[in-house]
């Protein structure tokens, strides 16, 4: 790919990017969210058209106008969400043959025995020894991923894009995947490897390309770059730490949870926070932050022990957790946080109905007063409690979701990606609400993958990787680069790296 350019509207996403893969190598493509990785790969896979630039495959120039054409040219894509590429109710061999079946020119009558034999050979090629008649639904995630890989191979792909292939894999499964990649490399297949897990990238990649803001920052052999250098290239020049107002918070532990089980990763987590402390939980997408947040309010199946202001609890439903003083502002606010057809007022007063009613009868006047007060203090626009929340902007909807907890007994606030999909202005509003809450003595847990925002808001930050909390670090002593480094799998206890000298480890480290 030469001099690829792409702009969405006035935003230039790719700026003259050159990218090449040789047969039999793994070329890793790295960059922060928004660096242009996905756009570049979508162009290669034929999903979007470049504004300028050329693509050449084995010497012949190509111009893809559809994913089908890219596939025929030998480009294969293994998407991150493998479930979207498979039919769960069908056996493996039918999944593998699905593309061929969709081809109109395919012979209408097929021999089942031949097909199964063909599928078994393909599975063997990706190192799977499961019967091709097994239903995809019954396969593990690792197996599904390899099935997608086999499907890609069956279309004679010579260049395969792997998008975050290890995001949901265990260590052992990752090792097996890497062994298969090595094998296929020997057969002359070229890989483009996209991942945020930098340690694995170092292990598997032959060459690296680091993108930042649509430009190539580094391109070269993988071995010559240390993990620290990769992070520096990805994040750009070190920024002067923004002058952050020092916040003080209480010394007594207001919230603690021990042995909270995260079902998805089969890990347990210990976490605590002081009164008035804003505690960040930093992790990449897929690190298990949402799972942890939802487990902490017992919305997910979990086990463990909670402690609020010295009192011990075990929760089995959000009803109990909320009664004890926990609350969650969920990530999917439209799906999990709002009653969309209802008015702002109804949404804001869900938790206040007991106070607003007498003998179960809701006082309309009191309710409107309460809603008006919240609308005004939160700055919700339009400032009318009777508007249906589905007509509000994302930022104002988020204020409503937060607002429903403000005048309640909630003492511990869990925010899961609270700035997702809201504008800069609303972001600042949300931050100031969070700070006000903490100043009032509430405890805040802030789950996010937006590392800059975490550093801006939080007093203390937990590093979360693969369903585990690895360290509890004071935010004032962390830099953006360190945070990226740790969350990408950089060792906190490892040999003194370039970031190491500035880090004072404090608090408890869990492993």
């Amino acid at each position, binding site marked *: 790919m030469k001099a690829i350019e792409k702009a969405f509207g006035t935003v230039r996403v790719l700026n003259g990017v050159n990218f090449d893969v040789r047969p039999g190598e793994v070329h890793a493509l790295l960059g922060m969210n928004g660096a242009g990785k996905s756009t570049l790969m979508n162009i290669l896979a034929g999903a979007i058209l470049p504004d300028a630039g050329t693509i050449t495959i084995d010497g012949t120039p190509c111009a893809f106008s559809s994913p089908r054409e890219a596939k025929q040219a030998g480009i294969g894509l293994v998407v991150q969400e493998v479930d979207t590429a498979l039919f769960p109710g069908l056996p493996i061999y039918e999944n593998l043959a699905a593309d061929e079946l969709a081809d109109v020119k395919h012979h209408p009558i097929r021999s089942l025995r031949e097909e199964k034999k063909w599928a078994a050979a393909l599975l063997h090629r990706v190192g799977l020894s499961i019967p091709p008649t097994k239903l995809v639904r019954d396969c593990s995630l690792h197996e599904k991923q390899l099935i997608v890989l086999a499907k890609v191979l069956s279309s004679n792909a010579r260049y395969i894009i792997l998008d975050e292939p290890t995001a949901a894999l265990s260590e052992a499964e990752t090792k097996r995947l890497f062994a298969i990649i090595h094998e296929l490399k020997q057969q002359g297949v070229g890989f483009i490897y996209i991942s945020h897990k930098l340690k694995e990238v170092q292990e598997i990649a032959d060459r690296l390309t680091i993108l930042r803001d649509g430009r190539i920052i580094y391109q070269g052999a993988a071995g010559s770059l240390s993990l620290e250098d990769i992070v520096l290239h990805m994040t750009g020049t070190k920024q002067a730490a923004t002058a952050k107002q020092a916040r003080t918070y209480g010394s007594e532990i207001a919230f603690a949870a021990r042995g909270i089980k995260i079902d998805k990763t089969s890990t347990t987590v210990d976490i605590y926070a002081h009164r008035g402390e804003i505690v960040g939980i930093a992790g990449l997408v897929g690190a298990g932050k949402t799972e942890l947040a939802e487990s902490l309010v017992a919305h997910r199946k979990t086990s463990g022990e909670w402690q609020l202001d010295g009192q011990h609890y075990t929760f089995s439903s959000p009803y109990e957790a*909320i009664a004890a003083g926990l*609350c969650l502002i969920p990530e999917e606010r439209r799906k999990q946080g709002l*009653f969309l057809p209802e008015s702002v007022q109804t949404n804001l007063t869900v*938790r206040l109905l007991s106070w607003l009613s007498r003998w*179960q*009868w809701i006082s309309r006047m009191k309710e409107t007063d309460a809603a008006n007060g919240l609308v005004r203090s939160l700055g919700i626009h339009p400032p009318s409690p009777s508007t249906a929340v589905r007509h509000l902007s994302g930022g104002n909807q988020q204020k409503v979701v937060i607002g429903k907890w403000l005048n309640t007994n909630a003492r511990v606030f869990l925010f899961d990606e609270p700035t997702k999909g809201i504008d800069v202005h609303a972001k600042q509003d949300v931050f100031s609400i969070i700070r006000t809450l903490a100043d009032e003595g509430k405890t805040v847990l802030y789950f996010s993958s937006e590392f800059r925002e975490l550093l801006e808001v939080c007093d203390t930050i937990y590093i979360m990787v693969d369903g585990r909390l690895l360290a509890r670090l004071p935010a004032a002593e962390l830099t953006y680069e360190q945070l990226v480094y740790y969350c990408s799998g950089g060792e906190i206890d490892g040999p003194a790296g370039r970031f190491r000298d500035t880090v004072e480890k404090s608090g408890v480290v869990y492993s």
Partner: protein
Amino acid sequence: MAQPAVSATPSKKAVLSTLEFLYKHGTLLAILAVIAYFGITQDQFFTYENFSDILRSISIVTLVAIGITFSLIVDGFDLSVGSTVSLATIASAAALVLYRQEIFVTLLVPLLLGIAVGLLNSLLIVKFKLPDLLATLATMYAINGVQLTYTKGFSIYNDMPLPDGGTAPGKFIPSFLFIGQGELFGIPFSVLLMLFVVIAAHLFLTYTKPGRLFYLTGENREAARLSGIPVNRYRTYAYVISGFFAALGGIVLASRIGTGQVSAGASFLMDGVAAAYIGFSVFGAGKPNVIGTLFGSILMGVLLNGLTMMNVPYYAQDIIKGAILVGALALSHWQKK
């Protein structure tokens, strides 16, 4: 450039508001149009007797439909109401005729049975997480089987012969018959009962805390759960209420016809569902609501009454019912968009 824009807006607005008006009041207009049409074409239509007749005939459907409305409000569905009506009819008839019970037990037994059916439904749906349609379809069959097995397929009536050679000891007592046949201030008691239930349920759902929580549970169960609403408890309540009102409908039915007819409640399921869904569109509510349900069953009642006067056979009337239901569903679907 401003000129055409100004001239274009009002007409566009007018079209829009006419459409909105139709969405909002379409069902009401349909009722009025139907009444006007029958009033003009049928001489006996505009009489007190006829209107009292219509209301009497819809009182049972409305009771059943209000139960269905509750299950719809929590985003569920209850197909078993028809069988519950039959069960309650048989139970009250059996209590009177076979066991010589007084009014208290006669009312208590069917109502408790209705609540039990509701609990069974919620056990299957809330606890075992079966899909509501399938679970209540299963209970619909099972409950229907229970009342058939109990009666061996025979209706229960006054002085009925018993297998041992004698006649049944009890009979339908006047206080029980009053529910379905009596009048208070010249108004049928069953109509008064229906109006009382409609008003009480409407006030409960619109103005009280539990009423609000019923709606929120149905609108977004996950958000409701994360807001600390015990959603499973409210879903259970809804099915219990649905069973209770179906049983109440069954009591009125037994009292009206004065016998315990087997499987007499089956037809109330579809009429009740239709009334509740027509109710979605009344006043542009876009969601299940009791007042809408009342208007839904009025529309059906008026139509059936008028069509009977016009000598349209009862089997053909189902075609009209189906058409009305489709219209109401389409209307409320467009409203949502």
